[in-house]
């Protein structure tokens, strides 16, 4: 029992930075994983990645002007991400181009602009730190930011739950009963950007998407119900954060990749053993409640 305590509880009891890393990643999982579920249900799993890359120029501009300060980098990333996501959404609603295509175009432009801005600094060491934030360096400000984003996300999900589910699963039905479709769509994009910007503090812009999408994708193998899927995704996200941090502690591995790889392990296990995975997925061929 003593050794188990040392392995599981010891690191967090002894070190404040481990507590903050856990608190940050758990808050992030609670907030980002349900958003990931909705991204997946809308068939926008890769859009998260695109949006994550598109925050780079904003973060870079904030960094260029104010140095490694949380607030300017966050606000910059938020503006760039929102601008990109909303423009891409608007183009897809106003023209023949589908959202995946317009998003691909805008994120590539945005990413190139970001790399250009970071390089203007003359040093690229900082690009590495923008791309790979470190969960071990979370301070009180970063935790407040992640906590605030989690609160906003959960409130928004609670208020717009029915509209979001309808917009994902049956947009035509939503259009026939109400005209909130576009509003809900844009609001959802705002939530995605918010969560990615909170995530890059902890995991960097490249890996923040991992904690958002992988638990959601894993949860899909266990259930058809959206509500259950969200709860399961959050549980997987929290378990992976804990496992990743402990592995990082005991085996001296970098923390960010360890957390995302733990999410990946849950995903692979879900493919193999999930009730809708390779083992039993074929039985329920006829049911088609979710996308």
């Amino acid at each position: 029992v003593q050794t188990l305590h040392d392995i599981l509880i010891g690191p967090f009891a002894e070190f404040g930075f481990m507590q903050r890393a856990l608190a940050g990643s758990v808050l992030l999982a609670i907030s980002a994983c349900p958003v990931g579920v909705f991204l997946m249900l809308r068939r926008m799993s890769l859009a998260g990645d695109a949006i994550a890359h598109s925050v780079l120029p904003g973060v870079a501009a904030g960094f260029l002007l104010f140095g490694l300060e949380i607030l300017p980098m966050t606000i910059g990333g938020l503006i760039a991400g929102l601008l990109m996501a909303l423009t891409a959404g608007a183009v897809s609603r106003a023209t023949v181009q589908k959202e995946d295509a317009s998003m691909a175009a805008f994120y590539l432009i945005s990413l190139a602009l970001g790399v250009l801005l970071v390089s203007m600094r003359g040093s690229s060491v900082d690009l590495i730190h923008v791309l790979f934030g470190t969960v071990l360096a979370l301070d009180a400000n970063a935790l407040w930011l992640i906590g605030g984003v989690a609160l906003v996300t959960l409130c928004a999900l609670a208020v717009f739950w029915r509209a979001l589910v309808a917009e994902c699963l049956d947009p035509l039905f939503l259009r026939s009963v109400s005209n909130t479709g576009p509003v809900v769509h844009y609001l959802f994009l705002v939530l995605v950007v918010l969560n990615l910007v909170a995530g890059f503090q902890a995991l960097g812009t490249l890996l923040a998407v991992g904690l958002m999408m992988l638990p959601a994708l894993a949860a899909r193998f266990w259930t058809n119900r959206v509500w259950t899927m969200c709860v399961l995704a959050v549980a997987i996200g929290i378990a992976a954060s804990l496992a990743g941090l402990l592995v990082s502690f005991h085996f001296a591995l970098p923390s960010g990749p360890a957390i995302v790889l733990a999410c990946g392990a849950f995903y692979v296990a879900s493919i193999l053993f999930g009730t809708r995975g390779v083992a039993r997925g074929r039985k329920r061929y006829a049911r088609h409640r979710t996308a």
Partner: protein
Amino acid sequence: MKTVRPLALALTSISVISLPASAQEKLDVVASFSILGDFASQVGGDRIALTTLVGPDSDAHVYQPKPADAATMTKADIVLTNGLGFEGFLERLTRSSEAKATVIEVSKGAALIEAEEDGHGHDEHGDGEKHAEQDDGQYHGATDPHAFQSVPNARVYVKTIAEAFCTADAAGCDTYKANAAAYDAKLDQLDKDIRAAIAAIPQGRRTIITSHDAFAYFGKEYGLTLLAPVGVSTEAEASAADIAALVRQIRDKKASAIFLENVANPKLMEQVAAETGIGIGGALYSDALSGPDGPASDYISLMRYNTATIADKAGS
């Protein structure tokens, strides 16, 4: 950190430090990073046209060369590099620019030390593998490349540079030799001053923490023990185990102060400082000079600034 990174530096990654052109043909010298640039201009004076690739406050470990750098390399007579894998970008750049310049590794002849595997403690060295790895300077991690952080090594660098200039430009040899000798005298004085300053720190407080192992040579030369959470290169990402080990070491009262660097992310060190209640001693200059208005605009002021910062914090 903001004070050592003024915005004005944003575009100065290539700084051309040359006096107005005179009638004579100047020696085109490329220095890989700012500290070598300073040595070269001390030795060459106005007989050389100097270009420094990695400018002030930038990290040579992860520098991305620009097309202008390749153009500079192509017309250079001499390229000065630290070697030992310090400038990861340089070998590729030399090849791609098809430079015909003589490439001088100025760390040749300096007293080198092995890189730490994990950066915790500097007490034991296995001498067995030392000789096998010493020749293999290309691989970062075999030998610690930051040799310029000890003044005796800097004097070797200056001597190597003067010899290289003499070979390339025999007419100016006397000037180079004289400049090098004058600069060497200053370095000698600097060395004595640093030893005196460190000697004034009480024995029990001569352990400090920096964010990467750039100061191993400084520590070894002047009798300081240095701890760092990340290995020799700034490219590595710290693991939870590294940070935990560092926090434990500080808690055991082993370290007296924690210092940041001008080229690294300060956030992690600030967290360790908050965790342990140890003070942040300020920023040290490791692999790059500061801008012209900063406190470490040349090598001698860099070493004096670092020494004063350490002595001030650890000595009190």
